[in-house]
């Protein structure tokens, strides 16, 4: 496999892993704030819920990057995934802000 193919595979894998890490952080934040046992579990396992979210997101990122890099990939263009990663972070931010506003004003 040529170096350019490896580079494309690695970058796409990392971008997809980044998207999943962002989706995970967003989802677990919303769920843990609405389902107390999950937040309690994070605190008990990782000392603090925020540390747990970061640690699991990091582990997920490393694992997904590695797995996707090893698997065959059809696409030869990493740029779409870079855009998708940026959009995922924007969407995650909007979801989190909306959730905390709704929670603060008891809309939920």
């Amino acid at each position, binding site marked *: 496999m040529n170096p350019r193919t490896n*580079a494309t595979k*690695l970058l796409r894998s*990392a971008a997809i892993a980044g998207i999943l*890490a962002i989706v995970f952080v967003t989802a677990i934040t919303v769920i843990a704030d609405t389902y107390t046992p999950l937040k309690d579990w994070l605190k008990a396992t990782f000392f*603090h819920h*925020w540390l747990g*979210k970061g640690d699991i997101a990091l582990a997920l990122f490393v694992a997904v990057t590695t797995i996707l890099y090893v698997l065959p990939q059809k696409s030869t263009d990493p740029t779409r995934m*870079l855009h998708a990663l940026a959009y995922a972070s924007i969407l995650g*931010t909007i979801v989190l802000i909306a959730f905390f506003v709704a929670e603060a004003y008891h809309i939920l």
Partner: protein
Amino acid sequence: MTFTVAVIAHVIVGLVGIIATYAVALGTRKKTPSVVFLIWTSATAFVSFILSWAFGAYYYVLNYGANVKPVILAGKYPWAHSIFMEAKEHVFLFLPFLAFVTMLAVLLFRENIATDDRLRNSVFFLAMTTFLLGVFITLSGVLISGAVR
């Protein structure tokens, strides 16, 4: 390390990361981007966000919850914590991943980035998004600091 030193370090190193991210975005817009400049600025951004994460974690986990959060919630601006701190602390977790992928793109495609417009535009968009999220996080921090007083 005192908590004051930790929060100051968190802010300063975080700002370095945001400035470096903006530099990456600007660097991709040049007619002939300097690959060395892009590598250094993207690496600086990534390392800075990691360090800011570490300093912030020390302050947040060991001090903020017990000593600062109750003051804000009992004060005139409880939404500074309920909305802005809560959003900030979680959006912040996005930054190291965004910065790492940006740095990876620059490193892996350093021979192409000057001539590949699609790639340059993608790196610009990712870096600019990271920068704007960093600005949101910084302004939220300013709000929270004000609410404590």
